[in-house]
């Protein structure tokens, strides 16, 4: 019996959803175990960094990496995996374009830490303890005394292709089991597109597979922009035509329009299409294009746009770090970086 191809699965700044999607393969998971030899998978198996280091270069057939690069540790690990792997796949929106955590690129580290450790309503931190570079852990009963060191944070979150060379992308937040399965099939059969492209999903935008596309009027023009928080969409009618900011037209298809089937507009987790330069730029340009501004006063147009409180969070929900303008200016200057991590 020939040796099974080796697979590594690593998480960077991840929420766990991508790992969940792996489990969602359900019975197909058995096939995965049958076909591949998993050599590294921090979420489920006890392999250490040294185990990967010991492997010969290029000996891992495929490394699947989810989550964006937020800390030095992530950067080091993906570089190591790149060296050891034949194919590296950015798995999920975060590793491909930054994902939701990428919206943190609008804030510097001090603001992020303050928000996370002090301000959030669900946080109880009366002593106002903030992260420190080193922590002494002393549990005498267990005879544990150690010094732990936090990995150094990076000023911004990066998609993994800004750090290493990526062969393929599997889109989604998280990728659907079918998309993952399609991608695995492509990997197994070797039926792979040119390097640097998306596998497992469609080459057209979501509208292509959306059942509501047929219900679009001849001319798509809306009087206002609506949010599902404030209005209930009519069923069986194109959400965009109703004024809901559906990202379907600008987003890659392949999810089978799952959200739309639940009467929710697409938020864009399958990301950018080939040949489009900037996801959010394209999105805002088509929202601008469908607003029926001709009978409107300038004031009303302004009001229509101001009805959406968070434009960046809407149009770059999954892709801010890979946008042409990928972060707020001056993020390198933060107290945390300077005083705590002494960078």
């Amino acid at each position: 019996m020939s040796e099974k191809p080796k697979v590594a699965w690593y998480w960077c700044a991840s929420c766990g959803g991508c790992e969940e999607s792996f489990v969602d393969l359900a019975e197909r998971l058995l096939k995965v175990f049958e076909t591949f030899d998993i050599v590294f998978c921090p979420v489920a198996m006890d392999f250490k960094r040294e185990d990967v280091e010991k492997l010969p270069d290029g000996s891992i057939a495929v490394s699947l990496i989810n989550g964006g690069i937020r800390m030095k540790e992530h950067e080091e690990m993906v570089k190591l995996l790149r060296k050891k792997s034949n194919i590296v796949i950015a798995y999920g929106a975060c590793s491909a374009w930054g994902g939701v955590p990428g919206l943190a690129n609008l804030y510097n580290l001090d603001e992020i830490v303050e928000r996370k450790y002090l301000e959030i309503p669900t946080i109880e931190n009366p002593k106002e303890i903030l992260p420190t570079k080193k922590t002494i852990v002393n549990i005498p009963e267990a005879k544990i005394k150690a010094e732990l060191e936090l990995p150094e944070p990076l000023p911004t979150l990066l998609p993994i292709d800004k750090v290493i060379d990526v062969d393929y992308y599997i889109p989604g937040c998280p990728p659907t089991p079918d998309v993952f399965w399609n991608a695995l099939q492509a990997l197994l059969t070797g039926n792979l597109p040119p390097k640097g492209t998306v596998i497992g999903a469609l080459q057209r935008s979501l509208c292509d597979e959306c059942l509501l596309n047929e219900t679009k009027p001849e001319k798509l023009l809306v009087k206002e922009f609506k949010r599902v928080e404030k209005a209930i969409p009519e069923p069986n009618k194109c959400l965009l035509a109703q004024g809901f900011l559906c990202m379907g037209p600008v987003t890659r298809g392949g999810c089978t329009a799952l959200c739309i089937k639940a009467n929710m507009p697409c938020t864009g987790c399958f990301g950018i299409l080939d040949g489009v330069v900037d996801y959010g730029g394209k999105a805002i340009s088509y929202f601008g294009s469908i607003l029926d501004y001709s009978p409107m006063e300038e004031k009303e147009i302004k009001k229509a746009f101001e009805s959406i409180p968070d434009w960046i969070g809407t149009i770059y929900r999954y892709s801010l770090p890979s946008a042409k303008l990928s972060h707020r200016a001056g993020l390198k200057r933060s107290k945390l970086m300077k005083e705590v991590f002494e960078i």
Partner: protein
Amino acid sequence: MSEPRIGVYVCHCGFNIAGTVDVKKVVEFAKNLPNVVVAKEYVFMCSEPGQDLIKEDIKANNLNRIVVAACSPSLHEVTFRTAIKEAGLNKYLLEMANIREHCSWVHHDKEKATEKAKEIVRMAVAKARYLEPLEELEVGAETSALVLGGGIAGIRAALELANYGFHVYLVEKSPTIGGKAALIGYIDPQTKGAEVVSKMIDKIKECPRIQVLTNAELIQLGGFVGNYNAKIRINPRFVNERCTLCGECEEVCPVEVANEYNFGLSRRKAIFLPFANAYPPYYAIDYRVCVKCGECEKVCRFRAINLKEEAKILELKVGTLIVATGYDPYRPFKGEYGYGLHPNILTLFQLERLLDPDSPTKGELIIGGKIPKNIAFIQCVGSRNTTPGAKEYCSRMCCTTAINSAIKIKERYPNTNVYILYKDIMTYGSDETLYEEAGKKLVNFIKFEEKIPKVLITPEGLFIEVFEYTIQENIRIPVDAIVLSIGMLPPRDIEELIAVTRVSCGGEGFVREAHLKLAPVEAPTKGIFLAGCITGPKNILESIRMGSAAAAKAMALLSKGKITIEPMIAQVNEEKCSGCAICVGVCPYSAISIKTVNGDRIAHVEKALCMGCGTCSAACPSGAMQHLGFKDLQLLAQTRAVFGGEVHG
């Protein structure tokens, strides 16, 4: 396409460019840009030797892309395209770098201008690397024309077209052609507009190629240049060609309204003849006010009236459309210079009608029951920002018309004092002689500036108070009648016209020409031409000339029987298009529709309709819609170059 081999040609344009830009330095810079095989300069690239230089280089160096750094592409792009085509290259493999209008003409600092010229050339080279050969397309075209508006400009255009053998549909909204020129105005002191209109109408009567459709309006325009489908609604006239103009119907008609053909000076019945020389020469029933009592039908001995007539829809196929729907006279608001508050305050249009032999006073100047001893014209009513409701522009015809009328009054009523209160006298060109003549006839010219005249209605009579600008004194003039020289407004229904024909609105509410100097008389939509006051105020002569010009342009298009389509238009990548339809809504020319191809919804661009504006390409969320000649790839290369990035991909 093989590896780009680019030739860069920098023009001196005499001193136009070389005076401000160091051409030699630009050439040296260009030589070092990637893929540039040759870079040369010449004193006039557009000259025969300049073009030959490019042609020879294409052959000698096997060049496959050309960058000409010279003037605006709107000036010489065609010249150089033709040149490279003669050398065997596809003519769209040319990129113009505009270092004249965009650089040398607007800068003084030679060093900085030279740097900018280099950047412009660098951008052009970056784009040129990605240029693709494109082919023009040809489609068949109809050889008939639709002229919208039966005023003097429309009539002139129709006659020109018909004279050269083209079939013309002349569509007029009202029951008669002739427009306002038939009602008012002198072309010169000897010739009345009405006479000219009558002569033109006589010619139309003789011409079998002109089909006159009155009471008709264009309600839908589909198709594209050369192949327009026009839907015309013909509103019922209720009176047919058996009418002998006996007038008995008019006597029994119970409905009376203000007569718009006399600008409200008199009243007319619901069944009426617009004016003496109206064409077609039958009575018409105003379908908007007729109560269908049937009295006229009963009294008509010639069975010329049929009240059961209904609106008809006519569908026409035409190659071109001339829009000549004219203007509306300015409507003074109540109280503007006393308008509407005193019967002796009338508009210039009303006065013109009054002086016409066909008028209620048979051409006599009788206002308020008698011949006025003192009559004053107030100029610029509704024009040149005189009152809050007034427009900014000069209406061009009011000064000449008022002076003409003043001369006529002086000739016929030497004892009447005539005053003309003006801001500036705009009797331009040969009309200036009228101004002089009026002076000789002792018409009193009174100049006002920012402070406009005040009309006082008192028990003692009418007075005008004005600060006379030349003598710098307030004066008070007792008058018996006041004539407001009202200007021109865009027609009331211009919104509908724009919606149906897709012509575009200019800054003053009139319709805009594609380019005043480079594409006069043309609407931005191909195959649609403009004539007369629809593009802004004009006098009768100018309207006639514009009618002829529009016809000439229409004929140039119709005579070929086919249409060449520019290839720099939108193109759908069907592999990428998801049929999201965003492009459909943004297209100003309705050139895009969604079609089903192999079960997939795909955007479809009607090539002949696409004007290459690029709106759809910008709006397309998936990058499927690309503008040939301005593809994302090409523009991004250019953008990267302007920010100093790599010229390579």
